[in-house]
């Protein structure tokens, strides 16, 4: 396994006058669970279609498992697993028949194929289901989609919105399954559900209107945002305090309500020194001084929400 599973450099895709992807660049470390995050229509599916060879980039390069994307061929696809956003199945097949068919396309047969089909049916919660796929619910189809993407024990698993159609239990099971692959398989996982990324991903790229707004580890991203937000509570009216610190160079924004101040700051260290001093000077007592725990959702909204 190479150190980098996916490397994308200045990749663009245009459909006529519409730019779906605009000079996208990022890397996916091998063995990681990579969250590819973005609102609907950001270009996530387009990028996955390019990575799987279903579409071609207008410009730029991409390397998948060490192979140049321009040479995507059936041999490289032996090492990939893919779940599209809306997986299409043959409605006349059963889940087991579809998995056998998918395995056959990878050249699997005999006991190996039987073992994998059995375990993946168990994993997808479809063991013993004799109904044809045409009668499946969307959630069942999604679970079958995840199972078929794993039939070849892929080195790189590309999942396009894998949890979007699942109920909470199904969602948890799929996320646990994804997390269990960490270290063995690289998982590239596109979604607009932030809680899912927060739950299982190591690294994340946020795509907004065809551009990568940020690419970092989840921990880094949250740390960056956490350091900028403070909540301060004093034992009296916070209005005089607000007036005293207004205009401080480290202060970005400030709201106050009763004894509570909410601040965003550019320099946490400077704010940590100045605020207690100002509180003491005003003769107030400090009840609470904390940097808030932010969710990835808040980071996401801060990054992509501004221009909307």
């Amino acid at each position: 396994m190479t150190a980098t599973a996916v490397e994308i450099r200045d990749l663009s895709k245009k459909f006529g006058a519409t730019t779906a992807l605009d000079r996208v660049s990022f890397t996916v470390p091998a063995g990681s669970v990579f969250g590819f995050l973005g609102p609907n229509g950001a270009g996530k599916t387009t990028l996955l279609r390019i990575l799987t060879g279903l579409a071609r980039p207008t410009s730029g390069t991409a390397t998948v498992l060490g192979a140049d994307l321009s040479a995507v061929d059936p041999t490289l696809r032996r090492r990939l697993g893919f779940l599209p956003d809306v997986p299409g199945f043959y409605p006349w097949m059963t889940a087991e028949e579809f998995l056998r068919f998918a395995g056959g396309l990878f050249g699997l047969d005999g006991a190996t194929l039987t073992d994998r089909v059995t375990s993946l049916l168990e994993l997808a919660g479809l063991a013993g289901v004799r109904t044809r796929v045409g009668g499946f619910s969307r959630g069942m189809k999604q679970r079958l989609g995840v199972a078929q993407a794993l039939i070849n024990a892929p080195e790189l698993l590309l999942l396009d919105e894998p949890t979007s159609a699942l109920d909470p239990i199904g969602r948890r099971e799929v996320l646990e399954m994804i997390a269990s692959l960490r270290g063995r398989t690289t998982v590239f996982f596109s979604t607009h559900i932030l809680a899912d990324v927060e739950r299982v991903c190591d690294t994340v790229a946020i795509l907004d209107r065809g551009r990568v707004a940020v690419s970092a580890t989840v921990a880094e991203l949250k740390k960056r945002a956490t350091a900028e937000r403070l909540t301060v509570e004093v034992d009296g009216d916070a209005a005089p305090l607000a007036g005293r610190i207004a205009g401080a160079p480290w202060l970005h924004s400030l709201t106050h309500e009763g004894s509570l101040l909410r601040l965003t700051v550019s320099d946490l260290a400077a704010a940590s020194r100045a605020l207690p001093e100002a509180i003491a000077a005003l003769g107030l007592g400090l009840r609470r001084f904390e940097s808030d725990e932010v969710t990835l959702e808040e980071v996401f909204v801060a990054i992509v929400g501004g221009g909307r």
Partner: protein
Amino acid sequence: MMGFTAFLGKELQEIRRTWRIWVIPGMLLFFGITSPIVALVTPALVESLAGSQPGMVIQIPDPTGMDGYGQFLKNLSQLVTLAIIIASAGLVSTERSSGTAQLVLTKPISRAAFLLAKLVAELLLLAVSTVVATAVCLGVSRLVFPPVAAGPLFAAIGIWLASAMLLVTVMLLCSVVFSSRGGAAGAGLGFSFLALLVSIWPPAVRYSFVGLGGAAAKVLGSQPAEVAWPLSTALVAILLVGYVAIRVFERQEL
């Protein structure tokens, strides 16, 4: 070719387990059974109609097994040809619109193998159904008429089969080019109409596949017919159209 066998197996299973088993094979079998019977009762029907018109007398010679064969060939050339256009119009476009093509083609199967498996399955279905239906037509014909030589029937149907195989290949290309079944069917009908139009030009009839229809009728009537050029150009056209379909499909984004 990577993935070909697995995908061909899926195509054959699909034929067996869906409506596809009923359309072309069902029609062929239906005409295999009914064509000799229709030929048998046609004179009686015509005479009965003529009898209702005072003063009109139509004399029709007694039907023979050859009339049953002729009826069978006519049905194949018209109705079954139309059914082939409609049934094969969705060969690729349906897989594309349902998302199955995207799921399959991200696995180790080449687009060429995907198309070839579809073509082979469709041609197999057509060939086997035609042979069975022709044998049935022969059997029914021998039940209702005194036996006549079977050679011209098989030769004529063989020539029709070559033109039908070319049509299936053309429909494969149409289904690749057009995103909807309706668009592909329209293009297939356009191709058939164009071939019919060109068939009024004698050199085209003699030296190209458009002469296959006339050649089949002549062969059935034991008349001398030029078949080498029509058959060989049909084979070349099948290979060429199949190649173009593969190249177009390989360049498409899914």
